[in-house]
């Protein structure tokens, strides 16, 4: 649906985004992760046609985004900017109405009324946006980005400033849009959200460090540690574990070992424990959190840059 090919953007002498190739397909949510200054907003802006890439190209359904095609293609995109960017002297309804008219939506009153209802903003319809809380402003901005039912959603920190309940409803809404065939790119710092919401995660730090399913990204970072949970205290079985790993530890109901070849060593270990009388509940390889995978990717990149 929307694709970036070898996208590079240089400001002065500094390349903020380098050689980013990424595609977000129909009915897919991709989370764009990266530390501050990693080029997430610049990438989003290039995808939205707000700034031109120094090299590379953005295309939507095969049509390259240029000055000539920009006006028509931008109508297919819903863009939530980093800051809500609402006109403070206008009410919530008036803010949305301007955009409904810009997109030439039929029955703009109905569209705005529907958006207010969808985001539970009905009781604030006539409130000037200057009087709204940060979370409410974010909701209005989100309602604005979705107003014209775009095929493509580019959302820069959509749940930033929202309370957990509203953040969850936003996630539900994005899932709903995904089911409706929308291609969604979400920039976020919230790894938990990325893991719950995204079909794929793209880790950006100037360059694209990884693009994969959250689970696959976690798997890449193998700790090599095996956890064996046993009924009751685990310390009586530590000596058996130490035969497989001299540095094994026992922690209340679990033994933790580092195995160089878990596939080979796990079955005899479990067998030995059972034969010795341990009630083994489960044995599993420790899977790192997405956060660990992310931090390792970013750390590797920083170390590479330092060298």
């Amino acid at each position, binding site marked *: 649906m929307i694709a970036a090919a070898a996208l590079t953007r240089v*400001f002065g002498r500094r390349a903020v985004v380098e050689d980013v190739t990424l595609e977000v397909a129909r009915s897919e949510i991709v989370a764009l992760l990266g530390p501050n200054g990693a080029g997430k907003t*610049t990438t989003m*802006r290039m995808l*939205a*046609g*707000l*700034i*031109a890439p120094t090299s590379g190209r953005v295309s939507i359904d095969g049509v390259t985004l240029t000055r000539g095609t920009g*006006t*028509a293609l*931008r*109508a297919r*995109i819903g*863009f*939530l*900017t980093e*800051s809500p*960017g*609402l*006109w*403070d*002297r*206008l009410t919530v309804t*008036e803010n949305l*109405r*301007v*955009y409904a*008219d*810009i*997109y*030439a939506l039929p029955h703009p009153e109905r569209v705005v009324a529907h958006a207010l209802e969808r985001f539970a903003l009905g009781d604030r319809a006539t409130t000037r946006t200057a009087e709204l809380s940060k979370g409410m402003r974010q909701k209005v*901005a989100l309602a*604005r*980005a979705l107003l014209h039912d775009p095929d493509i959603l580019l959302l820069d920190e959509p749940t930033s400033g929202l309370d957990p309940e509203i953040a969850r409803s936003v996630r539900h809404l994005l899932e709903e849009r995904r089911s409706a065939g929308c291609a969604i790119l979400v920039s976020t710092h919230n790894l938990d959200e990325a893991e719950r919401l995204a079909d794929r995660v793209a880790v950006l730090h100037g360059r694209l460090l990884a693009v994969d399913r959250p689970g696959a990204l976690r798997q890449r970072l193998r700790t090599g540690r095996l956890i064996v949970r046993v009924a009751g205290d685990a310390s009586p079985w530590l000596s058996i574990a130490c035969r497989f790993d001299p540095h094994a530890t026992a922690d209340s109901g679990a033994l933790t070992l580092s195995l160089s070849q878990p596939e080979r060593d796990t079955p005899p270990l479990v067998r030995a424990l059972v034969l010795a009388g341990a009630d083994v509940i489960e044995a599993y390889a420790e899977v790192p959190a997405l956060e660990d995978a992310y931090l390792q990717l970013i750390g590797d990149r920083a170390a590479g840059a330092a060298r």
Partner: protein
Amino acid sequence: MKRGRLRALFRKELLEVVRNRAALLPVALIALIALVLPFIVAVAVPAMTGQRLGDDRDFVRVSVAATAQLDLSPDARVQYFLFQQCLMLFLLIPITGAMSFAAHAIVGEKQARTLEPLLATPVTTTELLVAKVLGALAPTLAVSAAGVLLYFAGLVALAEPGVTRAMLTLRTWLLLGFIGPAAALVSLQIALVVSSRVNDARTAQQFGVLIIIPLTVVLVAQFTGALWLSVAMLALAGGALVVAWILLTMVSVALFDRESILTRWR
């Protein structure tokens, strides 16, 4: 340029201006001065001092050029001259007001970061800038028109016989209906050009206010009797202002750099 988008943006600009009391204040003040000052000079002061305007040799001298063709009493001639000159003050209403709004137009949006979502829509630069100019111009023209109506109502009620009729000429309408809006458009466009390149509204206003300098020169020259702008001269000046506005619009569209507005503003 799509009319629907232009209308939507224009309506939004209008709402913002109407609700911006701080920006409306200078417009209201100038309108008040333009409305009250001539009546104080031409009606109230002579009535309070008992000194007739037609007895003032300086006033009579400077008003000769403007009133030679008119069949008016000496007092009415001077009054006509004063009221006609003070009409120029109404030109300042759209200029001052519109400039104040326009200077905030881009800078204000940059500071509030409202431009980015707008630029992500199909809105074109021309639509954006034209809407901003018209949105700033319309309310000040409305204030100006209301002021002129009150001015003429005051003339009917308080001026010497024949003055009001003598004032209702093509020259007056040219001045108010053509020169005023055209000068305001030029001023607005200058403010917009500057506004899209600088980062504070005051700088934009300082550049926009430059249009007042030639107007003040003309105003002073007329008051001293050194210059009397004929209908032909006014039409020519108005035409030149319209051409200047069109050129400035093209310049502002060319200079409106979406990228630097988004990337160099924090």
